[in-house]
């Protein structure tokens, strides 16, 4: 990254500056360091939103720039969450189990400890042995590697199979949706080795930081999420700029022509698909410790569609658009469903927003697609252009 890269893309600096100001502001107003105007739970909500923004810009790159409408990126997000959740749950259970066994006359053997951990974790699904996929759960570095490796490998294999046989457009969307559905159905089984529909829980307790107050822990994750978003933003801005960015956009606009020009379209698509899947996995790994729990319902196909909705509402083909859309929709959603919006009394019928929010969202989504295909970002662009 040289100076000319930022000079060519001034919006990156703007974004980083705004994000930094926002992060500082939240920190100063939080319970951890300042006045406590922002509650710890709201800090967590903001941190989670930043993670969602990260996966949304990944989605924007794969869809808005490369033209692949993937309905599976939230599955990669969930896999990242599961990968980190395995370590969190294992390590925390290990702490608890060791503490309960510490006073025994004969110290427990290594197998006894791991058996006790396994039956503690898997008691809810009636199992008492640690599944093979938990082999690395004891080690944070290995499991962090999994956060990157599993979504990456899955995306690589799936993308290679799909792009190689020239599955494109709507077909590809359906196929990615099928992959997501298969994954969530698999995780719903009790013998999947990931606790079935109980999911992994207690993830907000970070092993080794038991005595640290949640306000500090949440602040740390908030900073980590902001940092990840900033790095992700710069990374993707770099990917979509320059010559490679041009090729990626050209694939979106006319894949056949790019192929005829001699580019290996499949490699570009595979690169974008895999890279965004990895970033989605990392975002998930930061999100779920803040959410505290992950279960298979999180990665149901609908979640991936919502991801597309955020990007579309924010405006495809511009990274800040994805961030705008995510923030707007998730905040509006929590405002409407959390009882923040006042009910409207029509005399004969009272519109309760908890019931009608999804109807409004669905219809506004149709409206955005029909009347503002460029989303909120498109409106921003228009304003900027008028000033200029």
């Amino acid at each position: 990254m040289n100076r000319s890269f930022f000079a060519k893309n001034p919006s990156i600096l703007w974004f980083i500056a705004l994000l930094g100001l926002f992060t500082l502001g939240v920190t100063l107003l939080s319970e951890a360091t300042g006045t406590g105007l922002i509650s710890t739970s709201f800090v967590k909500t903001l941190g989670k939103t930043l993670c969602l923004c990260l996966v949304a810009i990944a989605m924007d790159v794969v869809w808005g720039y490369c033209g692949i409408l993937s309905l599976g990126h939230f599955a990669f997000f969930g896999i990242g969450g599961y990968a980190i959740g395995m370590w969190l749950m294992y390590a925390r259970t290990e702490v608890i189990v060791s503490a309960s066994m510490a006073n025994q006359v004969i110290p427990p053997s290594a197998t006894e400890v791991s058996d006790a951990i396994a039956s503690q974790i898997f008691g809810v699904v009636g199992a008492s042995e640690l599944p093979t996929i938990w082999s690395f759960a004891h080690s944070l570095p290995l499991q962090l590697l999994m956060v990157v490796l599993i979504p990456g490998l899955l995306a690589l294999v799936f993308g290679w199979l799909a792009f190689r046989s020239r599955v494109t457009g709507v077909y590809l969307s359906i196929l990615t949706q099928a992959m997501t559905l298969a994954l969530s159905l698999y995780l719903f089984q009790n013998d999947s080795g990931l606790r079935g529909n109980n999911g992994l829980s207690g993830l907000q307790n970070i092993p080794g930081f038991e005595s640290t107050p949640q306000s500090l822990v949440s602040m740390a994750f908030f900073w980590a999420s902001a940092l990840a978003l900033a790095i992700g933003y710069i990374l993707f801005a770099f990917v979509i700029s320059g010559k490679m960015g041009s090729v990626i956009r050209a694939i979106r606009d006319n894949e056949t022509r790019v192929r005829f020009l001699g580019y290996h379209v499949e490699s570009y698509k595979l690169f974008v698909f895999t890279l965004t899947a990895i970033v989605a996995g990392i975002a998930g790994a930061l999100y779920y410790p803040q959410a505290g729990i992950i279960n298979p319902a999180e990665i149901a196909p609908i979640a991936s569609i919502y991801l597309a909705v955020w990007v579309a509402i924010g405006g495809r083909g511009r990274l800040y658009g994805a961030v705008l859309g995510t923030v707007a929709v998730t905040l509006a959603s929590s405002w409407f469903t959390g009882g923040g919006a006042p009910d409207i009394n029509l005399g004969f019928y009272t519109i309760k927003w908890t019931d009608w929010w999804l109807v409004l969202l669905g219809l506004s989504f149709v409206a955005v697609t029909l009347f503002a295909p460029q989303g909120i970002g498109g409106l921003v662009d228009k304003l900027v252009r008028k000033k200029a």
Partner: protein
Amino acid sequence: MLRALLAALLFAWLPAPGFAQDLQSILQEHQAEVAKPSRGTVGPVLEALSASGLPEVPRFLERWQDKNVYTREEDGLFFYVEQTGDTVTLIDLGTGEPAQTAVDPDALNQIKPNGGVRRAIAEALVQFQLSDPDITRRAGAVDAIARGLDPSQIAPLAASIDGEPDAALKLRKQRLLNYLAARFGTTPEARIAAIRALSSDLSVDGRAVLSQVLTTTTEIAQEIPASANVARILTPGTDLPEAEAYAMIAAKAGAPAIIDPTRIRPTLETHVENGKAGGMPAAQLTTPEARLRAYDALAAAGKVPPRATPEIIAETLAGWTIYDAYDEPDATITDAAEVTQAAVQSRVAVSQAADLGLDAISLASIYFLAAIGLAITFGVMGVINMAHGEFIMMGAYTGYVVQLFIPDYTLSLVVALPLAFAVTFGAGVAMERLVIRWLYDRPLETLLATFGVSIALQQLAKNIFGTQARPLTSPGWLDGAWQINDVIAISYIRIAIFVLALLFLGLLLFILKRTRLGLEVRAVTQNPRMAASMGINPDRIKMMTFGLGSGIAGIAGVAIGLYAKVTSEMGADYIVQSFMTVVVGGVGNVWGTLAGAFMIGTLQKGIEFFNPSNTLAAQTYMILFIILFIQFRPKGIVALKGRAAGD
């Protein structure tokens, strides 16, 4: 019978059987046993009653069993009692006429036989009921015998067969007699003949008889005794776990027991002295090997029972044979039963395969109905309608609403089917006009816009109808199942859905191949611009096609609602399968969709068959298979060829 004779001898002054004697006098002979019956003493009474052959005996036994027999305190005579209002009337046992009216209830004692006695009475009743004039009672008696086969039932059952007027019941009685003969027949030849006759019987009862003849007990011996009828020799380690085999032998031969590894540590803990167990510091006992050494040291000191070491286990197992022995000592009978059981099992397997095939076809017809609308719209317009599932739901709710107004289920179904078509046709046309036609150049955005419609419709249905499932009741003539044999059965609803799917297949083929609309639809599918230049209005065709596809989704909704519950999320359950069907089958082709539906239905049922406990896994594997299938036929089973395929 023997007991009856003994009873008769005991009461020496009893008139010879056949001598005219009424029910009351027989009962008076056993006054105490009847009034206060117990399991031990009721036998002779029942024998005497059976032997008397009086026609009123069954009636008395029933009333006795139902606690409706009373004794009059003053003379100990037995009566039935009828109560109207406060008036209690005594009924004579023999004539059934009132014997005394307006009795003081305090002067009566109700006879309350306990459960054991009632069972004994019921057994005695069976022989009367087997020849009862009322067919439901005869059938009830046969059921009672079938519930618990017992050798004592052979004689009464055999006696009742010749006089049985009902052909079906007679057949059942003969089958039941055959079961009894197979299990309790007097000669081996008779039993073998009865067992062989079971080879064409696929019923659960028949198979149960065979497995009861073939029950085995696991035994151990150093030398297998010559008298044992050995079913098979068990090899420890393959047929049963070595630990289990060893435990059996150890229990008999007194060898040291295997100490469960999880028990070693607690045992050691109870023997810790001065921080040492078995001579080793407790803090060092962190490996299994160290603990075993400590345990052996304790065992040598006689503080804990010795444990079976792997060497002892291997040595002991080598000296003993473990085998399953038939409880039936006669090898000729068990051989015949084994042969028959194998024959029955292979017939059952064939029937199960046929049953599975029927299930698969019925599932395929549901998928076909759900997917065909999607396939047409996808083929003609190249857009995927994510709200298709919600049209299915809309059709199902239409059926539910119709049933609220028309209580007659047959009539309501007749109304609901066309109405569901009309409602969803209208919804489809409206959606096409308002949303989809603006997005023809942007197919990916159609996907998202229709998804918006989908979540709005789903939530709307939730707001209107609530979250709980609503029933869509099928008419009475669709209840039950078509029982082809004891294994193959298919419910009439599924047959009806199959017929409906066939009907729509025919209808669609007719519309597409034989009508002007169909011609135009096919033209637009193949090349919209060329079709437009030939004077076809693609706009109108697209609108009509979309309406048609949505309308069929409505019909599918009614069909699905008939056997599954109607919920606001039911569409979402079918949408992915519908997509799969379309993608696998190939776009824009009725036959392709049929092939896709058939393939997915068969696949799903097939996987479920191999892993019946886990339908989630079945779906997972099916989707994985489809993803792989797309690799080899990216355009589906039936792909459009040439220029029409487009890109």
